[in-house]
């Protein structure tokens, strides 16, 4: 009895892990939630990049560490963008959300990639220059996060 | 040994040590024999996954017994007659050394000779 219930638990965990990532959207509300989640997760990557580039500019974050953090942020952002685009918007009314968010997600990914390259090359000046763009991206993404409630 | 003993609670699944304190295994099952009056009395302890597997039964138990029999090369569990049991307490202590028990810890010896001694440093204790 014990054994079977535990075994069930483990297989359940695996199932949920697999299912939690991308699912179909059945309603507009559902899709809005997905938009908000994708925006929130991408903003997390952008904000991580903002904090680490600031620390790098202050001479606090060593180059290798910054480059690692930035490449992880880039990978996260690009995989979020990819799986977001795979979800079909359920109706034409909210089709525009897909286009709007996709373009912000893409520019976030390319910003993060440029930052990662600058950090890898140890180009501090270029890094600060590129980082100046991050707050703007972050606030753009923040606007999509409020869609979850609506 | 005049004390009343609940074999299910105080004997089964206890750790068995030999007379020098070396682990022999657990009391995996009990062997009952009939005395002169035809009443069942405790005759021996059975030790080893073969015995445990048969006791658990079902698919899991049979699989365990099967694998253990393959690994040990015999489907017979180690049988320790009650005469060789010295003391039953929170552990079961035998009056003989484990080396005197035929067929005890076969897998242990095989792994020791075939695997562990071949890895450098395997013979030395670290404390």
């Amino acid at each position: 009895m014990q054994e079977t219930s535990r075994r069930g638990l483990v297989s359940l965990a695996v199932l949920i892990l697999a299912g939690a990532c991308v699912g179909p959207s059945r309603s507009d509300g559902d899709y809005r939630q997905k938009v908000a989640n994708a925006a929130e997760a991408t903003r997390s990557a952008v904000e991580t990049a903002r904090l680490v580039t600031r620390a790098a500019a202050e001479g606090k974050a060593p180059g290798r560490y910054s480059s690692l953090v930035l490449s992880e942020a880039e990978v996260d952002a690009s995989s979020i963008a990819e799986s977001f685009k795979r979800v079909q918007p359920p109706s034409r009314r909210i089709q525009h959300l897909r286009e709007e968010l996709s373009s912000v997600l893409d520019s976030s990914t390319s910003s993060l990639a440029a930052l990662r390259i600058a950090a890898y090359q140890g180009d501090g000046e270029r890094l600060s220059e590129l980082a100046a763009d991050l707050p703007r991206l972050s606030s753009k993404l923040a606007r999509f996060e409020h869609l979850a409630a609506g | 040994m005049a004390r009343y003993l609940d074999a299910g609670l105080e004997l089964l699944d206890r750790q068995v040590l030999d007379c020098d304190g070396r682990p022999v295994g657990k009391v995996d099952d009990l062997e009952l024999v009939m005395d002169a009056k035809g009443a069942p009395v405790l005759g021996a302890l059975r030790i080893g996954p073969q015995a445990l597997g048969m006791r658990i039964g079902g698919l899991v138990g049979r699989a365990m017994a099967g694998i253990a029999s393959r690994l040990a090369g015999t489907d017979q569990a180690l049988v320790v007659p009650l005469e060789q049991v010295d003391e039953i307490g929170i552990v079961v202590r035998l009056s003989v050394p484990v080396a005197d028990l035929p067929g005890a810890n076969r897998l242990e010896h095989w792994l020791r000779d075939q695997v562990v001694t071949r890895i450098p440093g395997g013979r030395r204790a670290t404390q």
Partner: protein
Amino acid sequence: MKRVLGAALGVFTAIGGFMDIGDLVTDALIGARFGLAMVWVTVVAVIGITVYSEMAGRVATITQRPVFDLVRERMGARLGLANVVVSYLLNALTLVAELCGVALGIELATDVHYLLWVPLVALVTFFVMWRLPFKHMERLYGLVGLFLFVFVVAVWQLGPDWGAMWHDVTHPSVPSGEGLPTYLFYAVVMLGAQMTPYEVFFFSSGAVEHGWTTSDLGQARLNVFIGYPIGGILAIGIQAVAALALQPAGIQVEHLSQSVLPVVMAFGKLGLACAVLGIVAATFGSVLETLLSSGYTVAQHFGWSWGKSMAPTSAARFSVLVIATLIGATALALTTINPITITIYAVYLGAASLPFTFLPILIVANDRRYLGEHVNGRLANALGVVYLFVVSAAALVAVPLLIATKGGL
């Protein structure tokens, strides 16, 4: 003087042994997401693990019977076997997470992909396991693990509003935008991160490995009563810096590199160096503890001879099982399975398995035939029973919560 030093070393070892990849990831994750609203869970969990480790350590010290000996005796062959199988698998899963944890720690300093470090970490683990005496092994990672205090010191450096922080700790609330099920899901995660079953297995088996006797009971108690709460302070420190530095930015922690970001912001390169040293030592310690615990649980169930302090030839089945487990875990880690996900699930399922570890300990700790005058006092029993209810409740809600929140989304 020498005695005091020895006692202090024991305590330091307990602190370092307390921390692992589960703490490093979940504390930062939860701090960044819920602020200080789960500090109370940490406090609850630390008291629980202290109570049960003390009990298990006392039983093992006096009777030389560690946890899985008792599990088999008290739960019988069938339930005992189910328990040992589940515990072994959970231990092995945690081992995978800890192996990756060491490698991720090294990656932080080198920017060389962690998968390249995993085999090297496994090799070093093998050498330590085979050659380094138990005591030295414990001290090695216990002492270096103290570098993690950089997380606690960073709280001051980040200059918090202490009044507001205290208010958040004492008036925990579910942050806006988070549902109650999600909050509870992470509360179970937090419980599991601080109350890891392997800590109890390891501490009780360690008492036998050390050859502790009744006269060492004082040291055993000192280790858990001081060491674990200080470990808990470390955990709260990690939560606090994440709450201060990451929460305002809306960062969701998904990498170890984000866990250390607050320390980098506070102390720069030196802070990062301390954090990396501490992380590598603490997770390496947990690699050894989970690996040994995998061997302990199975060997104790079947009554084999076991122990790291024995020559491997005197505990051949145990040694072979440990090596096989290490090889298997390394192979699993190399499949590029996400180490952070593994960590969270290992921690979560670990919390759900606690009642099955705690119940036999509580029963035997009350048995005079085993412990004589050292049976549980009233306080230990009262706390023991309360915590049995706490972990049973957590185990019962674990699966429904997992489904309701889709794994904490």
